[in-house]
């Protein structure tokens, strides 16, 4: 089923990643983000598209920028530290674009790991972070193992339960390899990511039992 949603020559247009980065960044800046935050948000979305994770890719810029315009997101935004230890921090995402707060939190986690061995940051007042393993993969260029997770609104039933109580709550994990490709895991904790259900609906195919 997942094969039916692949992009091809007839349903899509190829654009260089650099141009996508420039375009997305311009859109984010136009709705009030800082230059740095616009570059970050664009980078995370382009990375998802480059890696074939189209559900979390560049097309989401429209929804995110609309949320910024409508005041659902607060921009410009600030990531502020609520509590902190050498290896941990609790931060507020300032109700801003989730991509930006998650990116800045992972930068903090990396800095703490560089100094003390490991680092961990939990973020509240946040929004959608896009492809969750992007943040885990930020650790790779520092020769570190990275991990990232995010919660979401109820869509998944508990085992034995008949009502939506949990989010699809994905987990991302990355570890560097040498000559082989880096290990890069990004998985919803539901049977399937919710984007795939939406995709099946858009293309009009039934979902597997």
């Amino acid at each position, binding site marked *: 089923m997942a094969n039916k949603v692949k992009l091809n020559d007839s349903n899509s247009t190829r654009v260089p990643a650099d141009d996508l980065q420039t375009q997305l960044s311009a859109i984010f800046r136009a709705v009030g983000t800082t230059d740095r935050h616009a570059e970050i948000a664009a980078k995370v979305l382009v990375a998802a598209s480059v890696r074939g994770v189209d559900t979390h890719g560049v097309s989401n810029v429209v929804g995110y920028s609309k949320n910024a315009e409508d005041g659902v997101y607060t921009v410009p935004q600030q990531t502020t530290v609520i*509590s902190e230890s050498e290896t941990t921090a609790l931060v507020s995402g300032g109700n801003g674009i989730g991509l930006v707060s998650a990116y800045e939190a992972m930068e903090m986690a990396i800095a703490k790991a560089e100094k003390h*061995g*490991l680092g*961990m940051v939990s973020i509240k007042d946040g929004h959608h972070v896009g492809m969750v393993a992007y943040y885990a993969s930020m650790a790779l260029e520092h020769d570190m193992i990275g991990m990232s997770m995010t919660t979401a609104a109820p869509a998944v039933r*508990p085992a034995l339960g*008949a*009502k939506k109580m949990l989010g699809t709550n994905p987990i991302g994990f990355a570890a560097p390899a040498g000559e082989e490709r880096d290990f890069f895991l990004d998985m919803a904790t539901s*049977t399937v990511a919710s984007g795939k259900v939406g995709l099946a609906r858009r293309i009009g195919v039934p979902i597997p039992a």
Partner: protein
Amino acid sequence: MSLTDPVIATSRLLAMTISEDQCTGNSRTLAAERSVGGRQTGISTKDSSLALDYLKLNESNSIRVSAEDLHKQVSAILQGVGTPTEHAEITAKILVSSSLRGVETHGVGNAVRYAESIESGEYTVPQTVEIISETESTALLDCGNGLGFVAAHQGMEMSIAKARDLGAGMTTIRNGHHIGMVGYYPMMAVAENMIGMAMTNASRSVRPALGARPRVGTNPIAFGAPAGEERDFIFDMATSTIASGKIGLAKRLGVQMPVGWAVTAEGEPLTEPRGDRGEDWAMNPLGGTREQGAHKGYGLGLVVDILCGVLSGGGFGAQLSGGENMTWTMAIDIAKFRDVDDFKSMMDDMVRELHATPPLPGEDGVLVAGDPEADFEDDRSVNGVPVENGQYDEMRAKAAQLGVEVFI
């Protein structure tokens, strides 16, 4: 249903297999993946627990023994083969905890096997756990080829101490062996108002998603977080469809395995439980089929291999021999983030919200990880721990053979 009636058990399983075939509608290439495609129909999961019911201990197949006596007996047997008192006490504590919590596959019945591994020289006892490298928040330990319990226990103690100082602590352990119920170690952190996590890897028994040979261990993950008035969250899962101990149990009881637990090298469902490891069969990764997310169980299995085996240098599943296990532990000090009572209060809210979920038709109610084990512990800490008849005799015989006191 009588647990000692494999005929009934087999027929119930067969009925389940047929209904699974009927609700299969996908077109994957592996025959086994086709046949388990409808395993989770979303209607009721009750039947799938049947196989697990066979293994329950009852008055006719087991003898109740007090946890204290069991602890003394396990410790005495381990000391009888040369284990230092402190190490024997740690191992006994963890094994008894598993039995108290109803995790029989990882409980006191294994004491004799560990003692034999020590006697044969497979384990080095007395062992020295060595710190190979260390930072404020991390450590790499060498288990010294001894009892896995001892190094895992020390690893978690170090993680907790580091977390108390700096917020979070993590250890990875090489040159180790079986650590028993992996969920024990997070419970150590929970007792200190911390979040705990532990993983351990094992030799190859599970096929990768899309693969037809065993290459990954059952590689369990455990996670614990403290609640306030509600029970603590204690989660302990293999990254395979089923823990390998359950296959051994099915074999001992002479019952068939449900479709979905294992496949042959040709991709056909394997329902006859196997007691050996080989290239001609494999357990399925959690998820089972591509459509049901087998890549997720497989991916998590590799996360365990990376943190336990690659980070420690002890080796990933496909490199390990049976009985070799590398381990990883982590502790996170909640107080470094926010008020512990506020954290626990939100945990209570979460547990209550989940317990209040309307159950699927035919189910009694929604559980939270750790509920069944806590129920067992409530009963067994008062009424004694049931020990399977054969294992009871085996422990007494081992104690007598070693010339140590028989406590049970």
